């Protein structure tokens, strides 16, 4: 399906294929951190991204619903410990997102 702007101009295809779930800056940051490691725990992601617990939990929840991450909860003694890792689907989606963004930015007209 060809998508158009309000003025009728056709929206370039890579733009229409950008994954809006990943495109949100906080989720993009989370996906980027998870992409460069195998597993990270909640505390690590919290420290690196500067989010609050609630914010982090909400974003990861959305990514989990989409099948991009797997969240595993355990207890170390009496302390909860949550680890997160990208699924293969999440890894592919992130790579596709990066590819689409690259195409969009490469196709921007030069001044």
């Amino acid at each position, binding site marked *: 399906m060809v998508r158009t702007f309000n003025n009728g101009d056709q929206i370039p295809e890579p733009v229409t294929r950008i994954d809006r779930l990943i495109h949100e800056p906080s989720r993009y940051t989370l996906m980027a951190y998870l992409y460069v490691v195998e597993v*990270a725990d909640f*505390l*690590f992601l919290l420290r690196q991204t500067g989010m609050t617990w609630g914010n982090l939990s909400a974003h990861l929840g959305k990514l989990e619903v989409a099948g991009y991450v797997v969240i595993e909860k355990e207890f170390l003694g009496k*302390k909860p410990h949550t680890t997160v890792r990208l699924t293969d689907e999440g890894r592919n989606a992130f790579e596709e997102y990066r590819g689409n963004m690259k195409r969009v930015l490469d196709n921007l007209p030069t001044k």
Partner: protein
Amino acid sequence: MVADVNLKEIQRKVYMTFFQDGLWDIFLGLFILGWGLSILTEAAYLPGVFFTGIYFTIWGIKKWLTYPRIGYVRFSATSRRRITARFLILGTAVLLLGVMAAVLWGIGTRPQWLADYFPLIFNGMLAAIVCFVAYWARVNRFYLHAALIFLGAVFHLWLGTRWEFGFIGAGGIIVLIGLGILISFLRKYPKMVEEVHGEDLQ
């Protein structure tokens, strides 16, 4: 591209968390101290004992001190293999350096220039290994540690101080730097417990 630069920067930030707590500086400082004590006491096994003992202790301390403050991350299998390979190369280089030192120093007849400049050569090679760590890990303060190690030999040659005191001095300063970083790290990152339903579990 912006996306690629950001990803590399993120990967670098993740690697840097390895060195945030100053424990590897303390490890290096104690290892250099071990070299100095080894020369002082003529106990050739001391550097090996220090290296092995402290290396495994560091990981235990990280689990107790560091991970509850900045969290835990496991690198991909490829990255872990790369890191392990580099540690093995470093360990082998240090071992070979030690063996070379023992052999050359033990030889009865050696050229005069070697006898005169051996500390400079040895310290220079040790400093080069530390520079390799600084380059690989992109931890610039390790270049300072390398310079301190090399300066020990310089002071020995030009000021006449004892060679082992250069190691002990450099090692001591590096340990103090590491302790300073560790104290700063502990202040900056208090222990945190995951929130459950919005409440902290203590």
